């Protein structure tokens, strides 16, 4: 587990637990980090919007630039305009899915639920939850983009078609990922199950927001050193921040 309050590390500013199959907006100021800790079986879809809300996470550019088909530390999550939005500073899991988008109504199993009947246990898809959250910020369908699905793993097979294989049981209780904001970002998080998860068993994710740590020399930062492309995205963010 990474350093938290009580040891010589960044101060925990606050903690919030996103319940199973819920959505939450997290504005994260540049330099701050968030430590996300999952309950067993969790999936966390994350959209990222930059300080200019038109500049959002580009999974395609992030994967292409860093030569991976998944998200893993210490990769940099990049925007459409080549800015580093977040650095994935650490994780207990080797990789996280970014190929499969988020669940829609057809991925919510069982009979239709309603608030009238099921109160706050009613089931809504990730798409519904995320759009509801985006609407609070005056954003909508056109602001949707491919999310990262933290705590989930989908492997691409070696056959010619590149078949996808979802790995059940990948996330165990206490698995975590830490992200550092490289810009003032808005994160939209959703704990609905991964769309390829055969069962509806959403789990909670705890978010601990940490104060900015001491500024280490850029050249020593693991994300900066990953590859020239991640370094350039981080330099772009520095330039944009002044």
């Amino acid at each position, binding site marked *: 587990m990474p350093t938290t309050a009580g040891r010589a590390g960044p101060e925990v500013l606050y903690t919030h637990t996103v319940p199973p199959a819920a959505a939450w907006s997290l504005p994260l100021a540049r330099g701050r980090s968030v430590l996300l800790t999952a309950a067993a079986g969790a999936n966390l879809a994350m959209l990222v919007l930059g300080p200019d809300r*038109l500049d959002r996470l*580009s*999974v*395609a*550019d992030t*994967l*292409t*630039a860093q*030569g*991976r*088909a*998944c998200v*893993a530390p210490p990769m940099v999550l*990049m925007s*459409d*305009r*080549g800015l580093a939005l977040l650095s994935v500073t650490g994780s207990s899991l080797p*990789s996280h899915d970014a*190929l*499969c*988008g988020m669940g*829609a109504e*057809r991925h919510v199993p069982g009979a239709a639920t309603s608030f009238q009947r099921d109160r706050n246990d009613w089931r809504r898809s990730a798409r519904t939850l995320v759009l509801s959250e985006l609407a609070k910020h005056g954003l*909508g*369908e*056109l*602001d*949707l*983009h*491919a999310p990262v699905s933290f705590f989930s793993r989908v*492997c*691409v097979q*070696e056959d*010619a*078609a*590149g*078949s*996808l294989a979802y790995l059940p049981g990948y996330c165990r209780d206490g698995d975590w990922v830490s992200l550092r904001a490289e810009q003032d970002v808005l994160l939209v998080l959703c704990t609905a199950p991964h*769309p*390829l998860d055969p069962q509806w068993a959403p789990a909670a994710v705890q978010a601990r927001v940490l104060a900015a740590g001491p500024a280490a020399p850029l050249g020593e930062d693991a994300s900066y050193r990953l590859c*020239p*492309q991640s370094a*350039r*995205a981080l330099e*772009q963010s520095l330039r944009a921040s002044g």
Partner: protein
Amino acid sequence: MTAVTGRGARTSAAPASRSARERYSPRTVGKARLDVVVESGDGYLATVPHGGHLRLVDLHGSQVAAALLFDAADLANRYSAVDTVREQGVSQLSRGSVLLSARLDPLARIVADSCGRHDTLTGVCAQESNAVRFGEHTRHQHACRETFLRYGAARGIGARELSAGISFFKDVAVAPSGELALGDGTAAPGRHVELRTERDVLVLVSCCPQLNDASNGWNPTPVRLLGWW
């Protein structure tokens, strides 16, 4: 089966040795409603009615044609790469692939493909991502996003409407380790891919000008667009 390539209609039997995944389109050039050559660095916005066929032809081989699709009645109902990949369960596009919108509506289906596979994971090039991938010296080189914005403007497609698109004729492989890399390609002049639309669709095409990697064989060349409706 009649094989028609971008170099004019010719008739030949599909070779018996072709893999089952390759399919030649039976439509003939002479009856096309749309027939344009799009030079590298240029683009086109095609309005294709429901049931129409749009064929992209890689005239000289090793040329990426980037594309975005939109429901003509509602731009927010736009092509979604990740929803398409997930729903079809495979990461490559090929004959039979249904191109889905973010609302999971079918926009078009690939009905003919003499190439075998097309990429929708790596997105479409832009000046900003070029600068990240290749260095600052590439920031002012032309890229597909400029072309999309230029041709999309006439129908209200702007920065907010853009999203990750398809790179037809681009061969990208995902290794078991999860590494993503440009493949050797199935480069052959005259390859084509043909879509049949499942509703009225806008297809925004850019003939990719990328010079910094092997996507276009280090030499961007024109593609031909043919349409039947």
